[in-house]
């Protein structure tokens, strides 16, 4: 029985090609982490030199050290703001997942529902959120609810469209097999369509994670005034009015870091869920 046994065999003969490939793989692995870090260090260094050599005043471009100091000094306030933004982002993402997957399931259960509502999902998606947001804040009293609605509008579509695609992409022969064995609609959904849709859904989820952060930030900009319980975007606006450029940079760095962490977290989740069976999670050999 070939496929499994071959792998456990220990190679005794060194093949030049394979050795070279192994070295290349190792270098790749190291480079994947070190190169971005090196680029980052060089960039920060150049940024610092640029500011110092050109004697740029800090209210135009603060140096990296000053930004870092501000980040520490204003940590309490910025962290609170981060928590607010993060809360909106994660709640929006959760609702986007529930709404997107729920709608997708509804669509695949009934062609009529899909035909009726899919065009409107597209319309919601293609209309820029900055154009809708002011209206939302007129009609929705609760600030949090408004922010949530905006972030959700931006984030739910990739979940919806990817999951719909996934639910419909189940193998044709497997569908026939389920029919032959007299599977109910629920069994087909549970045992065939949902697992088939998982890789597609996770792809959509990764996009939605970034989008819900964007949605939350944009909505905060539009919502404007806030005071207590304001998020990072509001802090950036506020710092801008006061020409506190270092704080703007510090807040910006926090937003970017949040986006990266969300993306990395969702990628990791996706890898863990698919690693046993899906092609995308396989390591290519050779």
């Amino acid at each position: 029985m070939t496929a499994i046994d071959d792998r456990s065999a220990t190679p005794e003969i060194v093949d030049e090609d394979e050795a070279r490939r192994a070295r290349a793989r190792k270098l790749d692995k190291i480079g994947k982490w070190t190169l971005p870090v090196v680029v980052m260090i060089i960039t920060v260094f150049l940024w610092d030199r640029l500011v110092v050599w050109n004697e740029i005043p800090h209210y135009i471009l603060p140096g990296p050290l000053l930004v870092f100091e501000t980040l520490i000094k204003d940590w309490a306030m910025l962290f609170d703001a981060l928590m607010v933004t993060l809360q909106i982002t994660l709640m929006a993402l959760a609702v986007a997942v529930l709404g997107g997957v729920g709608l997708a399931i509804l669509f695949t259960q009934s062609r009529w529902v899909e035909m009726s509502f899919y065009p409107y999902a597209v319309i919601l998606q293609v209309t820029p959120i900055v154009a809708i947001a002011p209206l939302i804040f007129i009609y929705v009293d609760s600030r949090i609810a408004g922010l949530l609605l905006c972030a959700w509008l931006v984030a739910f579509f990739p979940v919806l469209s990817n999951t719909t695609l996934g639910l419909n992409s189940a193998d044709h022969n497997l569908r026939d097999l389920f029919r032959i064995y007299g599977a109910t609609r629920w069994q087909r959904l549970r045992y065939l369509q949902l697992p088939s849709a998982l890789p597609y859904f996770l792809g959509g989820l990764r996009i939605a994670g970034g989008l819900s952060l964007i949605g939350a930030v944009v909505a905060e900009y539009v919502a404007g005034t806030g005071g207590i319980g304001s998020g990072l975007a509001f802090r950036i606006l506020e710092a801008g009015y006061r020409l506190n450029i270092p704080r703007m940079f510090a807040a910006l760095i926090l937003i970017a870091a949040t986006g990266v962490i969300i993306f990395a977290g969702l990628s990791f989740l996706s890898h863990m869920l698919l690693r046993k069976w899906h092609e995308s999670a396989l390591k290519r050999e050779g």
Partner: protein
Amino acid sequence: MPTASAAPLDQRSEVLWMEGVDKTFNGNVHALKGMSLRVGEGDFISLLGPSGCGKSTALRLISDLIHPTRGRITWAGGQHAGDLGVVFQEPTLMPWATVAQNVWLPFRLRGKTYTSVRDDVLEALKLVGLEKFQNAYPRELSGGMKMRVSIARAMVTHPRLILMDEPFAALDEITRFRLNDDLLELKDKIGCTVIFVTHSVFESVFLSDRIVVMAARPGRVIRELTVDAPYPRDDAFRTSPEYAAHCRAASDALHEAMEQAA
């Protein structure tokens, strides 16, 4: 479980019969015209013919995935859940499920828990020689092994009839020969009834006791041959003059089918 050694061809009790079945697609594609077939218990029937002669259509009709335009398909004693097992040209396994979970599927769709049928699942895997791989995922298996899993899934419920649509066509010659041998061994052990679609003369002669030769445009049966060599058949049968004679007869019929279509 059915008896392992089947009765002579003409004394077997019936499983299913097709009477004058037509299937027309789009109003003018006659995929099948006037097909009649009587399937007896323990039969191993090959549908042999060029592509487009309606072999797959016949199987889809029997599996009730599509319905006859005219004519009738009747199960002796009516059809019940688990009466049918199917093997497609592709292994058609669920990649997210282990080998054992894949074989469990026909039971699972009838609401049976894994523990209640574990013995049947393992027995089926043992019959195809894969009991050690019950926890492997399909992608860890070779093409031939996946096909074995597919066969185990088709027979795990001991169906009255197993349909196979060119199951080995995508495999290499050596794997195919081995699977042919194994399939006959299986038939010997559990005495299943099979309708086997192929376009290989050799495969049809080696495996079956009845060969139904079909022609295309319109898809129809043009001849039925009997291969009266007793089971179990082995490599000796593959080199016997008897086998060669049957192959020639089937080959002639196939040529006739192709000429009629041309």
